[in-house]
């Protein structure tokens, strides 16, 4: 079991990193490419699929997925465990959010991998 204080430290760190990674993501879309081009699917060098073509950019999306999944679901765990305190309930909440978070990370990673393969020439 991870100690609560370590979970909170990770929560703060992921919060800051989300700001950084999210900022990078928005910057690449809005500042480095023409806005109309970036909204197209695949008919432009700056289109949506071009993000998945580039390994670094796809990797940053994966990082954002992991950060948001941890931060969001840990936050949900904290909220749910504050509302009611019982040993079984706490374990059930921890297990449930972990399973859902892992499922979403697996599905999101699969999506990124498939998109990367589709986007690659």
């Amino acid at each position, binding site marked *: 079991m991870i100690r609560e*204080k370590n979970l909170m430290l990770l929560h703060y760190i992921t919060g800051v990193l989300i700001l950084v990674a999210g900022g990078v993501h928005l910057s690449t879309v809005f500042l480095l490419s023409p806005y109309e081009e970036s909204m197209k699917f695949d008919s432009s060098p700056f289109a949506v699929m071009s993000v998945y073509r580039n390994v670094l950019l796809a990797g940053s999306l994966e990082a954002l997925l992991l950060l948001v999944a941890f931060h969001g679901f840990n936050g949900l765990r904290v909220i749910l465990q504050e509302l009611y*305190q019982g040993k079984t309930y706490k374990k059930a909440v921890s297990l449930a959010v972990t399973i859902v978070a892992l499922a979403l990370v697996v599905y999101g990673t699969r999506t990124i991998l498939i998109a990367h393969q589709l986007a690659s020439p």
Partner: protein
Amino acid sequence: MSEVEFKVFRYDPARNGGKHYQTYKVPVRKGMTVLQGLLYIKERLDPTLAIRFSCRMATCGSCGMMVNGLPRLACYTLIEELKTRRVVVEPLRNYPVIRDLVADFSEFFEKHRWVKPYLIRIDTYTQEKSNTSYLQSDEELERYVQFAYCIKCGLCYAACPVVASDKEFLGPQALAQLYRYLADSRDEGAGERLASVADGHKLLRCHFAASCSKVCPKGVDPALAIQLLRREVLLRA
């Protein structure tokens, strides 16, 4: 002399009475406090009213209650500062009610005891011998003295939104006192203290609403103590 209406929460489980409010008309003069108004009611209008009070000068912390929706010391709250002709008085929130305006502080004191509110020394022989002094500089005193002003009135506990929902959370008063002893240079129990709150809901469920500091009548600033304690736990525990 003008008059103010006191709407007072009444509850007597011994008489199977339900929770209800009773209204009293109280003549007020300049400088009159809420406590004086309640004592007027008790002495002249309704002697069955149960209230807790003692020093009448914001030192003992006994007369904490909800006054117009905020936790305050009744002896320290002037009726004229409320700027209303209607004063609603209720027992402190987040505490079980014994009767009328008297709240049960058992859980509050239990949490305070849990944080070991005394100096922990390795050299217990010297401590018990009591013919020596532990020297402390002004700077060392400044690090914790603000948090030592706590009078255990419980207003911070009543104001805290996390205490309202999370039974495992220690509460602002206990956590402020834990930091008070942690920051005291005479204390040698830092490892033990930090380890005790590094896990679970005891410390880390604080969301920094800071209502505890807002209502504290002695300027203790428990929210500051909790954030300083949180930093110590995250970095050192």
